[in-house]
């Protein structure tokens, strides 16, 4: 809406509203996490008034987590799955996206529509038949079984294709005329230019895979192969345990994405805008 200069009254009103909603959003959005941290430290929130800054922070919950072999395994698994799937997806979608963006080959249009069509299928729905398939392939409950299937993500391939489309062809043509071979062009010219898109993809992939517990829910049949979110979720809903420990687990779970978030807020913001607007 137009800000009419010389109408300070309305301006001030808007400004107050905007600032207060920003502060409000900060509160609404950070408070739940803050509370979780408090709980994890054994802050007595049932007291009247609730103890929002724990008087005697108790780290026993965290100690329990880090000494519990199950938790530790879960955290390890989380790292393995996240890094594995993310890396695999990035590499695969880069090559595929480049091919769709720049190269011409018979069957290209049909394949593209296939990818688009597959994008529209919700992932969770395919987990079920995948479970059965993986069981038959004897890949259930294995690292390969968890890491490989999500790598061929139509969505990521599509994203990378869009990103490559946005890069002017001039750079490749100059390099081509100057005598560079296709691999040289891809690795020394295109990929460096596409770095922001790659980083954005990496961040989103990382966060998504770290938080994803529906997938391992199906494929990891033994608790030893669970990742962290799955582990915590199971404990919360299967039997009531030490709530404080679980809260601590939640905080630990949140740490990794939170750190990535703080480092790469710009990339997240840009990623949302780019993927959202491109449609």
């Amino acid at each position, binding site marked *: *809406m*137009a800000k*009419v200069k010389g109408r300070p009254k309305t*301006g001030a009103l*808007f400004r107050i*509203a*905007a*600032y207060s*909603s*920003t502060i409000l*959003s900060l509160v609404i*959005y950070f408070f*739940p*996490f803050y509370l*979780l941290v408090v*709980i994890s430290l054994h802050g007595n929130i*049932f007291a*009247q008034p609730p103890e929002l800054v724990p008087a005697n922070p108790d780290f026993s919950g965290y100690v329990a987590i880090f000494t519990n072999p199950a938790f530790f395994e879960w955290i390890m698994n989380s790292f393995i799955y996240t890094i594995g799937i993310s890396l695999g997806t990035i590499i695969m*979608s880069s*090559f595929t996206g*480049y*091919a769709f963006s720049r*190269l011409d*080959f*018979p069957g290209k249009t049909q394949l593209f529509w*296939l990818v688009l069509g*597959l994008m*529209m*299928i919700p992932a*969770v*729905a*395919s*987990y*079920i*038949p*995948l*479970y*059965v*398939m993986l069981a038959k392939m004897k890949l259930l409950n294995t690292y390969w079984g968890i890491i490989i*299937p999500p790598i*061929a993500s*139509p969505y990521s391939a599509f994203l990378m294709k869009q990103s490559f489309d946005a890069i002017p062809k001039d750079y490749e043509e100059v390099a081509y005329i100057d005598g560079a071979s296709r691999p040289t062009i891809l690795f020394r010219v295109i990929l460096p230019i596409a770095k922001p898109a790659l980083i954005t993809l990496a961040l989103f992939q990382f*966060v998504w895979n770290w*938080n994803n*517990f*529906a997938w391992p829910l*199906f494929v990891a049949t033994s608790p030893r192969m669970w990742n962290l*979110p799955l582990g*915590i*979720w199971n404990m*919360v809903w299967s039997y009531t345990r030490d709530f404080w420990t679980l*809260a601590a687990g*939640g905080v630990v*779970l*949140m740490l990794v*994405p939170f750190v990535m978030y703080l480092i790469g*807020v710009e990339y997240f913001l840009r990623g*949302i805008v780019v993927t959202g*607007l491109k*449609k």
Partner: protein
Amino acid sequence: MVEKGKRRRRLEARDAYLMILPFLVLMSVFSLFPIFQGISLSFYRVGLPEDKYIGLKNYERALVDDVLALTLKNTVFYGITLMLGIVLCILPALLVNSVAMGNRPRLRWVFQAAILLPIVISWVTLGSAWNWIFLIGGGALAQTGRPGAISISPLAQASTALPTVGLLTVWSTLGYNTILFLAGLRGIPKVMYEAAQIDGASNWQTFRHVTLPLLKPMLTFMVVTGFIGAFQIFDPVATLTNGGPGWYSASIMFYTVRQAWYALDYGYAAVLGLVVVAIVFTLSVIQFRLIYKRYV
């Protein structure tokens, strides 16, 4: 005319196939094939000692399944809630945009950073946190002894579980949608506002005749996507209420997973999964047509 450049084209195609082969293979096996597997699965009762072919029994069951009907209803409710939530996001976006446009770009940045947070956090954490908040809130209210105070969390009560989960889902996606709107608003050239100003339009008129029309394509797309997204809701339900009480807050995707994972009834779960896929696919195609026809 002689076909020139065959050699070049062949080389290019060869390079292309090399690059996409791994992707094609994996995608066919793990994304395409499961669809067929799912269809075939739907005709079986999966169990020990072996799968038994039962034809359309699973489908018949689906038709009379009350829980399915309930979860479908829930999911539609979520869908509508999400749509409303999206539309509501325009307001804060407008607000922040108009002020930030003037002289405070920092504000927009802080605002966006704050509302984006839930997106990167797992629902396991979010669910745990919100459950705690409601517990505290309920506990605090109960202590005051006021009549009608809710002593248990709204997530645990049959009447309020569904709307609460819906609300929280909207809360978590607010950030994403508002940011998109902000970007969309940024995309409106400032000159349009200035022209409206010169023409003497009031704030409301400018909104109705300049901002809204320019935002419409984006709005439409987001709203439809939001509705479609409801059919994929799993995480919030699983972590906030685990579907409960009973199935009162369960989404259809949650029900599907439950059938597979807990009841171990993969055949039936396959049917449910297919239902979801069919619905989502149809809606997506409609959306595609809508956008394409009107705005391209």
